[in-house]
């Protein structure tokens, strides 16, 4: 930290009065410029919308502009190389999802897990193993038995995405056989599940609350450490002795070399912003609650855990580098 203050002082002494503002690079004056949040998708969709609302909420805390920059492509690698090309000064924040971690594992990414540092988590939507309401699989045990005896058709998003890795990690841990059917979106495989085209799927609560309430879908187990508030009767996989925890998480990171003081300012502003009614209402709207929000330490360790878990499965599937 010292040397930042020093360089700030040095520059102040050198700069003319007119340029004084540029010298205020010391942590005390951060942020003095607009902050961008880099998102790996086009506008629209969960990650982009969440980032836009977090940007509005954070902006209110920092008193500087916070905006979303869309850098689509390469499963996050376009966004990551963009972030890498920017200085580690805290003015560039990246939204990350499990997709980024899997892209790193494939060896397609300019950044590595050790290059990034978590700031805060914005959403956490655990994956829930679900079958159709009238399915003969009454419990997760039934499903596992059926998967050991035969093959379970399992729906999810693209190969190598979080749904696929989660399903395959579960199948491996439980000793099941799974035939994975990839779809373009969660809504599509939810529809396929209710039509009976597939036997099971990993879905989020935000997409399926009404179907669960109406009995169209039956949640069998949650891929998380703790039971969900919304589904108190549904066991977790870890209760069943399977250490499988996968979740549709969205959070924010900066480059690891970003000064610690600036990281803290960003973390605080984001957490405070996410406490606002606006963000809380958004969470409620998409079917989540305040447990989605997590601070830098917990979020950072979650990123690393998911990276590790993904690594093993992807190596088995021959997807990792």
């Amino acid at each position, binding site marked *: 930290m010292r040397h930042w203050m020093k360089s700030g002082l040095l520059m102040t002494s050198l700069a003319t009065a007119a340029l004084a503002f540029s010298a205020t690079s010391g942590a005390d004056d951060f942020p003095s410029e607009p902050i961008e949040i880099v998102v790996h998708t086009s506008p629209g969709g969960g990650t982009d919308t969440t980032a836009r609302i977090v940007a509005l909420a954070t902006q209110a805390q920092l008193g500087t502009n916070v905006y979303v920059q869309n850098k689509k492509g390469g499963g996050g690698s*376009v966004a990551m190389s963009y972030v890498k090309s920017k200085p580690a000064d805290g003015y560039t924040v990246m939204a990350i999802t499990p997709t980024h971690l899997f892209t790193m594992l494939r060896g397609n990414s300019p950044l590595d897990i050790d290059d990034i540092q978590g700031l805060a988590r914005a959403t956490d939507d655990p994956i829930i193993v679900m079958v159709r309401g009238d399915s003969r699989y009454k419990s997760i045990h039934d499903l596992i038995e059926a998967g050991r005896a035969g093959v379970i058709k399992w729906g999810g998003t693209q190969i190598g995405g979080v749904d696929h890795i989660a399903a395959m990690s579960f199948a491996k841990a439980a000793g099941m056989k799974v035939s994975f059917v990839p779809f373009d979106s969660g809504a599509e495989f939810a529809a396929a599940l209710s039509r009976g085209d597939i036997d099971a799927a990993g879905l989020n609560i935000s997409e399926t609350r009404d179907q669960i309430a109406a009995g169209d879908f039956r949640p069998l187990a949650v891929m998380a450490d703790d039971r969900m508030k919304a589904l108190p009767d549904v066991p977790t996989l870890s209760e069943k002795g399977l250490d499988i925890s996968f979740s549709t998480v969205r959070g924010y990171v900066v480059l690891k070399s970003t000064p610690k003081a600036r990281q803290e300012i960003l973390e605080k502003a984001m957490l405070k912003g996410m406490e606002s009614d606006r963000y809380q209402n958004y969470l409620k709207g998409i079917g989540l609650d305040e447990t989605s929000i997590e601070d830098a330490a917990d979020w950072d360790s979650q990123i690393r855990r998911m990276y590790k878990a993904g690594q093993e499965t992807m190596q088995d599937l021959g997807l990792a580098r």
Partner: protein
Amino acid sequence: MEHILTGFSILIDPMSLAVILLGTIVGVLVGALPGLSSSMAVALLLPFTIYLDPVPAISMLAALYCAGTFGGSITAILINAPGAPPAAATAFDGYPMAQRGEAGRALGMAAVASVIGGILSLIVMVLAAPALARISHSFGPPEYFALAVFGLSMLASISGKSPVKNLIGGAFGLLIATVGVDLTTGVERFTFGIPELYEGISFIPILIGLFAIAELLSQANVRDKVLERISLNAIKLPSVTDFKRVWPTILRSSGIGTFIGILPAEGSTMAAMIGYNEARRWSKNGDKFGTGEIEGIAGPEAANNAATGGSMVPTLALGIPGSATAAVILGGLQIHGIRPGAYLFENQPDLLYSIFAAMFLANVVFLVFGLVGARLFSRISLIPRTFLWPTVFALCVVGAYGVNQSMVDVMIMLIAGFAGFWLKRYGFGAAPIIMGVVLGSLVENSLAQSMIIFDHDAWRFLDRPIAIGFFLLAAFSLFYQPVFGWLRRFRRPRSAASKGAK
């Protein structure tokens, strides 16, 4: 009735009215500008709708969606640069009409056909949404595969040019659609290590390149003759005889558009393609399509706007978006804590009617805007080429860049432009290529998904009645032409001969 009145009462609330009008105008503008699409505009406005009440918020987004689909036709007709993918088919006949000096007639027709298509589909939406939602729910991968096969069956005949060249163009389009990570294997194809290609080639740069850039290059080959600028008809609106001629086309396309819109994930672009093709198939002047037939505008425009109302059906009734823009609107519903589904219709009918009222108003507003604007905009076609096309070029570059803020997309646009120009010289049209790109990933992914679902037993397609229906339609579509062509040759030997010569 009470709910309908409550729904329409948003039209007398000044705040709601203001945001709906704003949504409509923004929609027409972003729709008209290549590269700015209505789905992007809706996504950008989404976070700000948090400040609004749910009803005006969603109404604004829905109005923007309607107007954006119409807006695309303006630039498609005037400068051969479809402002949005759904307007691609409108350019096929719209631009030749504008070149002939009938821009006003084409624009006026686009506005009227759009509004009729849009309003008919909205009526269907409120009357039958829950029932129709069931149809869309029964569409799984096998049904989509059959639908895509039906779409591909039109490839050979989609433009009046040589069927063989159409098929080659279509195959080229399908090839373009294979670029990127394959959904079912996770393998990268034709990405050449360029990360921007990982998720496939974006549609918009291809569209801008094939249409606008290719046209620009052709224009560069033509000397600006004074003769061609004498087009006093430009600001004339379509006549009553025009409407008498196109009304069956408009009705047919409204039906097609509403149906395609209702299918989840199939949006206005495919509706417009099929609407155009059916207009051509049933028209007396089918062989003149592509040279500036007015039915060639009414067909796709009625269909793509009908698809907006249609796509709201599964979005609201099932929570399954009926198009890309509807997907973003669905996000908007969720932000406001509104969960779509059958429950929405029972618990919040007011909201449904408000959305209906907003989209209805949007249609009326852009009809006025479109008709008044037609006289104004059509003057663009009177601007000498030397001034017009450099401006168009700048617009195209910005448009291609703007989608993903990516220079790779600009390169793709330029390559598509040169390819399109070259292909055109050798008699290949843009229509089949676009059709191939639109259907490429659908046909491939739905087949792969179906095969996993069917345990790799293709005969099980026969268990799916809807799929069989589309396979039969595809067969009809393939064999209709030769059989009827043969019959026609007997009846009207002269017209058949002229077709053969072309």
